């Protein structure tokens, strides 16, 4: 009997605590002069663009900003969704274009035709309904170590990269575990289409020294000189120019064009403070552009932004490729499975 009593006690504790967890802490929404902004972690830290932007914005407008570090894009969406009946945030910063389908499905955002959209090129405005507004973007690219590979060997296209002369010279990243790795998978589908992309990967298998779990490992191996080519961003050389004063690492522009990743901001339809929230979005798309670009190592979307000279080493591709969010949402799992099958052989 005593034994059973113990188990009932455990069950009871589980139930009670689950109730506590389900209730959670409830905080009241913002007061009139304060807006709450959810952003991904890297945006909010001392190192990210967040704090500086908030200070500037508060000084300029007198509107207080409560900047909340809310995990990554997926976690932010889950968080906002779980608070639907008791909304806390007014603005969400950092939903990328390939995640957009999730955001549309959850129906959390309200369209906002910001006047700043006029200075943003059309190819970056991936959401025609203007629920998600782009604030920065980047391009995936291969970066070369010029001390390890002679310039006549530099590949000029994705196709050229499959040449056997690059055997064990390329560092790739797993699309199952990394957003950069996923970027390349989508890039190959954008270039070759669903029918052909797997043959590119089959050909690349010999050339990949290793396929790492994340960008950090791949780039670390690259700067250690393990291989002269790495999958990264077009903006990667900027760090080396700014902080190490070296142009040893350079971006390769490919003739097929480059896959684009766009980060966006959205106004929550549940916001009770829309005017101030809109002011913050406008600020992100104008005055904050330089800070965002340098701190995030991305391109500004506003074409009037003047970039520092180090960005000369981050050449912009002639052609920006992208897939629409719905297609990605529908097929991603199948593509990953196909990819895994081909690459495991």
């Amino acid at each position: 009997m005593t034994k059973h009593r113990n188990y009932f006690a455990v069950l009871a504790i589980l139930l009670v605590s689950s109730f506590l967890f389900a209730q959670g802490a409830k905080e009241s929404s913002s007061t009139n002069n304060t807006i709450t902004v959810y952003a991904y972690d890297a945006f909010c830290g001392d190192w990210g663009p967040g704090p500086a932007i908030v200070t500037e914005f508060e000084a300029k407008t007198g509107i207080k900003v409560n900047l909340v570090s809310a995990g990554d894009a997926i976690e932010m969406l889950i968080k906002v969704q779980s608070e639907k009946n008791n909304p806390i945030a007014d603005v969400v910063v950092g939903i990328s274009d390939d995640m957009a389908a999730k955001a549309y499905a959850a129906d959390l955002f309200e369209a906002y035709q910001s006047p700043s959209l006029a200075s943003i090129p059309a190819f970056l405005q991936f959401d025609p309904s203007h629920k998600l507004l782009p604030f920065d973007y980047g391009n995936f690219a291969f970066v070369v170590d010029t001390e390890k590979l002679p310039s006549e060997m530099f590949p000029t296209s994705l196709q050229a990269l499959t040449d056997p002369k690059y055997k064990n010279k390329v560092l790739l990243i797993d699309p199952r575990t990394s957003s950069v790795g996923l970027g390349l998978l989508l890039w190959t589908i954008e270039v070759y289409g669903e029918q052909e992309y797997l043959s590119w990967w089959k050909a690349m298998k010999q050339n990949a020294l290793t396929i790492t779990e994340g960008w950090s490992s791949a780039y670390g191996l690259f700067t250690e000189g393990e291989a002269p080519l790495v999958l990264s961003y077009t903006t990667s050389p900027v760090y080396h120019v700014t902080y190490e004063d070296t142009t040893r690492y350079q971006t390769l522009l490919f003739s097929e064009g480059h896959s684009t990743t766009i980060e966006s901001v959205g106004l929550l339809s549940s916001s009770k403070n829309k005017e101030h929230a809109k002011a913050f979005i406008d600020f992100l798309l104008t005055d904050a552009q330089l800070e965002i670009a340098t701190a995030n190592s991305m391109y500004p979307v506003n074409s009037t932004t003047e970039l520092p000279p180090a960005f000369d080493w981050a050449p912009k591709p002639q052609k920006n490729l992208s897939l629409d969010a719905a297609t990605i949402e529908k097929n991603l799992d199948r593509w990953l499975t196909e990819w895994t099958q081909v690459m495991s052989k």
Partner: protein
Amino acid sequence: MKQQDGGQYKGFYKAMPAPGAAVLLLLFLVPLFFTLSTAFLSEEGFTLSRVQQTFTSAYTIRILLFTLYQAALSTLASVVVALPGAYLLANYSFRGKRFIRALTTVPFVIPSILVVLGFVIFFGNNGFLNQFLMKTFSLEKPPIQILYSFKAIILAHTFFNFPIIMNLVSSYWEHMDMHCEMAAWTLGARKGKTFRTITLPRLLPSIISASTLVFLFCYNSFAIILVLGGGPQFTTMEVEIYRLARTSMDSGAAASLSLFSILVTSFLLIWYNKSQKMLARSEAYTTSTKRLDKRPATVAGKVLALLYSLATSLFILGPIASIVVRSFMASTTRSGAESFSFRWYRQLFAIERGTGHMGSALQALTNSLAIATIVALITVPIALTMATAIRKKGFASSSLELFGMLPMTVSSVIIGLGYYIISNRIRGGVSIGYTLVVLAHMVIAIPFVLRTILPEYRKMPLSYAQSSLTLGAGPLRTFFLIEVPLLKGAMITGGMFAFALSMGEINATLTLANSAIVTLPVVMYRLIGSYNFQGACALGSVLILVCSIVFIVSELAKGESNGR
């Protein structure tokens, strides 16, 4: 009647594990319950079909088999490498012994991304070892090409894990008397035979105990397998869970797969518990450390000991030293050549204004030290109280032991989702963040501290406590005056592991503190994320140094408690 069988103290022994169980329940089991329950939820409500599908899928079984295979092989390799070292540490006294013991915790505290890097910097095609060999013998191609293959996975896992086994087994071995061995020698058995038939079986409890930790480590390994293995042909359960949870965003399927994984590892743990209990009862107990021979007696013995020490030092020191060397490098000229520099250390200790994340490095160091110290100080008594209850026979104590080990069996991705639930529900200021981080680190440390204390505790005859109780001492007095002093060595080792684990932890800290609390690994992670690998190496070197110092100090404290 009740008075005689000591029943009056039942309540005391029952209450002992309560604090530990409460921490595990709130910070681990409840969130886990929520995360895993999604496996049974679909849009229509409760469903079993997803779980059924996962458990019977050929793909899942294949991944499971590979995961088990590589973990078993890695564990075996670690044991083989560790045993001679354990023998040397347990049977001989020599200079530098404490230093070697201190080194053993190092792979533990470095975040796995840095382990991978250190490994590549040393063993890589462009690594120190190959560059040295190529220069010395004027070779065209790197002679050692071991990375990016299945071998590399085993090698890296061994590097990472053999020190744990060496440490745990040697401290058990030290406390084992030599009577049986001496009897065998007297009866004419050769040394080899004596070792095989007598010493090895007697060591088994500690070997199995340490191996379980290592096995679970390798089972849940992630970065090492993908980066050093070379690609998707080496897919483990953890990778697949990550894919489902984070990339495919199918939390139900992820939960279902991790449920499967948890069941498999739990079966292993139950088997392990059984074997452990059986073995422990047969071991005689000695409270004194045997007198150590000064050094190996024969020339051959000396040479072998020296060779082994050199090989393992190179093996373990190589990648660690690589990280330290890198931390003194900075490129300052246009050509990109790197030269010796204190730049990162000047920034770390705020002598120079830090670039980027380096600015928060000093704050991170103090935070890490404070958190790790608190975690070590709280976890040891809590694990000790749990061990007191677990030592008893019976179903309840077996369940408690399994419960205490459970955090190790669950994929870090799934634990991360659990933390996310917590951080969303419990909102508060920085002080609540600190509390949550300390508690989460305790959850991670408890299995390790239990594993160091339990084998020693089980070896201790129940008669000690019984005689004390019979002689009129209460259970508290018995516990503090008899059992605790006897377990001091194991408690110190456990505390060190708790400290080291807390120093190196990152996932829980990031999720629970909403990036309001910076620790050394958090800053390292951010430095790496923003291209500053050398700065991360500098922080890694400080981490290594701190843990080595703490470990040497604790070894000294242990030495004194043994009366040497």
